[in-house]
């Protein structure tokens, strides 16, 4: 297994290089220059020229890329590895690291909530396939899955926060109450609900399908033929097999833990990485944009690897 992981990581290197190239190229080829925002009448051409030189924008493309690329990977120890933000001059790494916990909190909570609710629902649906409960739940799932998250977020926000005033409007904490857990939980409710509705719809459908697939298998029939009670047939024989694809899917959802909530974060002004990414695109804050893209890409690679590793862990038939 260790050699497998190592092999995969090595295989990932060209992919990472590819991602870097593409991201960098997109930024580089964008019409306009990063220093355009500084071109006000008060700023002299000489200052502009100095800025261009300072940012290394007068160098050839491969050199620029190389500089950026090699610096990028020193981020574990170098705070300036990702450069300075164009909007507020702070080190990009600081800005990003500051946002990560918020995003993790939001995404992590909604993932846990979703799974805790979705998995039992999916199992229930599979056991009682075609019953009225199954059909009603399926209808909700279908609608929930089709709903745009931002629309739902808007409606929930307007309804609960504005009209009823039960829950706070946005942000992670009320001003001055940093670190206050109950307050944070209040702020967490709406965004998590928004994300969870769509998420639950997806996971429970998947669980239902997986369970149905497994319950058709011969070994479930064998378990029944042994005289085992239904709780054991379902709970031990069927479930264990049905969870295999769920677990691997879990690995694939890891990437979205950091980047998935961009829209919801924006709607609720949640200070997370996704919101930062969206605003930095609008601000043309290229160093931040690049860093966020790279993080997103690496999360995908890690997520894929994690999915494959988890697969081997839960399914004894697989080993590398």
């Amino acid at each position, binding site marked *: 297994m260790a050699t497998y992981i190592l092999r995969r990581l090595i295989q990932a290197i060209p992919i990472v290089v590819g991602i870097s190239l593409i991201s960098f190229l997109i930024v580089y080829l964008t019409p306009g220059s990063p220093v355009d925002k500084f071109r006000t009448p008060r700023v002299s051409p000489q200052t502009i020229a100095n800025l261009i030189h300072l940012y290394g924008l007068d160098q050839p493309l491969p050199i620029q890329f190389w500089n950026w690329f090699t610096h990028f990977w020193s981020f574990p120890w170098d705070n300036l590895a990702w450069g300075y933000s164009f909007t507020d001059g702070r080190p990009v790494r600081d800005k990003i690291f500051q946002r990560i916990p918020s995003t993790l909190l939001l995404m992590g909570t909604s993932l846990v909530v979703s799974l805790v609710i979705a998995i039992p629902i999916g199992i229930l649906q599979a056991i009682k396939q075609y019953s009225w409960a199954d059909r009603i739940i399926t209808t909700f799932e279908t609608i929930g899955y089709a709903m745009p998250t931002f629309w739902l977020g808007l409606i929930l926000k307007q309804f609960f926060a504005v009209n009823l005033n039960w829950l706070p409007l946005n942000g992670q904490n009320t001003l001055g109450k940093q670190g206050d857990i109950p307050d944070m939980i209040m702020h967490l409710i709406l965004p998590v609900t928004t994300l969870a509705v769509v998420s639950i719809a997806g996971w429970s459908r998947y669980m239902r399908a997986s369970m149905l697939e497994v319950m058709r298998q011969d070994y479930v029939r064998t378990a*029944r033929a*042994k005289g085992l009670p239904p709780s054991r047939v379902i709970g031990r024989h069927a479930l264990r097999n049905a969870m295999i694809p769920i677990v691997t899917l879990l690995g694939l959802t890891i990437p979205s833990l950091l980047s998935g909530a961009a829209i919801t974060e924006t709607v609720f002004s949640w200070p997370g990485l996704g919101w930062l990414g969206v605003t930095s695109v609008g601000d043309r804050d290229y160093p931040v944009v690049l860093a966020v893209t790279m993080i997103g890409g690496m999360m995908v690679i890690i997520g894929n690897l994690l999915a494959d590793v988890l697969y081997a862990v839960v*399914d004894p038939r697989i080993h590398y």
Partner: protein
Amino acid sequence: MTETRGSNEALLEVKDLRTHFATADGLVKAVDGVSLRIRPGKTLGVVGESGCGKSITALSIMRLIERPGRVVSGSISFDGQDLIALPEDEMRDVRGNQISMIFQEPMTSLNPVYTCGDQIAEAVSRHSNVSKRAAMDRAVDMLSQVGIPDPKRRATEHPHQLSGGMRQRVMIAMALSTNPELLIADEPTTALDVTIQAQILELMKALREKNGMAIMLITHDLGVVAEMSDDVSVMYAGKIVEASDAITVFDKAHHPYTRGLLASIPRMGVKRERLEVIEGVVPNPLNLPKGCLFKRRCPYAMPICDNPPPLREVTPGHVSRCWLAPDGGKPELGEAPSAAEAEAAAKTLTVANP
């Protein structure tokens, strides 16, 4: 375990079993009036082509039929108990304990995520109050009884690490671990290589001797039937068409279907240019013929066959569902009686207790 009984009293008695499936395309009468009897310690071979309802019969006995299928009528009596009327939790005590079943596909019939030993021990623990340790010991013991070398190690392995033949042995070990009185074996050797087939059959014979258990052996392979069975029932399109002890069925087959099956076996030393076949195909269950279900393929078919033939006695202990006279000659009624005459005759000819 029950006390001994007279060896002619049935251990399992199925009477007029009907299991129907309500499919999107129509009602499929997979089992339509099947009766059979298994005596303690004896082996009944149930023979027929794919789709004739033999597996469904077995699953009906075990009450493992699921939607859209349903046992609509009939009685199943095991050891004096009516299995159909039994509450589900009591039926679970019978399943895997007094009646065990093994299936055709050893590849997929074992749970891939648990070890072989675990799966056998689970059956043991379910039906007896032994410790986990004792259950596992029994599992290992069963593995060695079915001829698996190095059983202790194998018990810790997962099914995918074993070959097909070994997996079937594990299934047998699992089924026999609770000392059942009746083993239902649904095509146990069909999915295996011929050489492995022979080994498994030998194994089953040996275990049968040892435990004195009855076997219901379902197969489409006449060779297997001949090797193992005391009694034989032949099924076609959901009905029993012939039943007797093995020797009678093989030597003195009455029903044209049985005779067709026997004739189609290639024989050594007999020169032929073409194999014997039974013309035609199995009828579409959604579009069954009127009267005898075999008439479209039967070389002796005549107008009387438009009426459902009775399950009649050919000789004591030998029944056949055919209009032909017991000696194989023309029906007593003639070849084309009226429908009313045929119906009346069928009633009188039908054996009361097949």
